[in-house]
């Protein structure tokens, strides 16, 4: 089992890719989700095009395009940047739907109360609507973060040395251990996913306490 430390190295890279791309996707999801709920047709249109295009595109193909095809337009990205960009754009498009639907699910009376109190549009959004919407967003976002974690395994294709890539290298050297290596790999991903859903449950409890 002298190959275990290599898997740990891979875990660190996987966690790094997951953390960075989740930040990018959360920012994009919030921006596009809010834009989809905007009154201005143009802002709504741009956000809708982003969501439709990046949801319809296959993530792996997008990753290939960003990493291999973009250099032909003189845009050369490092492996990590390409991975974070592709995963962030893709997951962000799905996340924006969660933001949009959670905002839409806040009862209409809350908007009307905001209007009656003569609050400005941004006041209404940030003080009344969003705090109520965020609580609804936690469970679906936890699922999305698990999808994101699973998606990071695709960086194997652009030879970024994440968990999956390390496991494939180890397999080349310790061929007879193949079942154990992949079994352990599945287990590590499962533990990481379980950690995400556990933290989400804690967060949800914390957010609902003050209600």
């Amino acid at each position, binding site marked *: 089992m002298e190959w275990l430390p290599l898997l740990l190295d891979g875990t660190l890279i996987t966690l790094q890719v997951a953390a960075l791309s989740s930040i990018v996707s959360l920012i994009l999801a919030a921006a596009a989700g809010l834009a989809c709920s905007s009154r201005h047709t143009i802002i709504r249109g741009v956000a809708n095009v982003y969501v439709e295009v990046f949801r*319809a595109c296959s993530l792996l193909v997008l990753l*290939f395009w960003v990493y291999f095809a973009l250099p032909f337009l003189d845009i050369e990205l490092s492996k990590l940047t390409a991975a974070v960009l592709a995963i962030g754009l893709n997951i962000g498009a799905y996340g924006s739907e969660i933001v949009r639907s959670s905002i839409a699910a806040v009862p209409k009376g809350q908007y009307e109360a905001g209007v009656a109190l003569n609050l400005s549009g941004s006041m209404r959004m940030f003080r009344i609507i969003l705090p109520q919407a965020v609580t609804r967003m936690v469970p679906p976002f936890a699922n999305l973060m698990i999808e994101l974690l699973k998606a990071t395994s695709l960086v194997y294709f652009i030879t970024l040395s994440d968990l999956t890539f390390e496991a494939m290298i180890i397999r080349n050297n310790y061929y007879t251990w193949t079942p154990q290596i992949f079994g352990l790999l599945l287990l590590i*991903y499962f533990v990481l996913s379980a950690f995400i859903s556990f933290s989400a449950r804690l967060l949800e409890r914390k957010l609902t306490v003050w209600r």
Partner: protein
Amino acid sequence: MWKWDYVIELLPKLLNAFLVTLGATLLGFLISILIGLVFALAGRSAYRPIRWTIRSIVEFIRSTPLLVQVFFLYYSVPMLTGLAMSAFVTGVFALGLHYGTYMSEVFRSGIDAVPRGQWEASTALHLSKRKTWLSVILPQALPPIIPMMGNYLIVIFKETPTLSAITLVELLLTAKSEASVSYRVFEPYTVVGLLFLIVSLIFSYGIRQLEKRMLRHEHPGGGEKR
């Protein structure tokens, strides 16, 4: 920069590979429906150990990447069982198993949405368990979830490039090998990206229309009542 001649030369090869992608998508979708139905029904079993086992399996498969499952099925399973499968069979089975766990949730939501009175009426009419499922519950549970199942058809379609990792020659791998011959990367990957984009946009448009029609069917005369 962009060479149209090269694109025209590429297209027949890519369209051939597209058939492989489409075949893997449809077969994977069919298997996922079968597995999803089995998981959904077994997940409602009266025996707690069966319920618990099925839910753990579903949870585990949903929490781990498709790519790693594909590797496990392709490289580990033959070593453990001596049973080797081709890349296509492995890939289709992996897609079916992975999305079967998602499909089981879809079936579960459909079955849960059938009113309790329907079960009670079946009991009152003394219908057998088989008859209750086949002629009362499933015919009411399935139609409303067809659009949701359609969404997973698109998801499976978008995941087929993952199978290129075990040398299934679908769209992405074809583009890759074309690029390695011609040293022109931009056109093949862009064309493949556009193909995926166009096909999934058309599909999702169709599913949205289907959804609308279902809604109108459920509330006659009130399509916009949402």
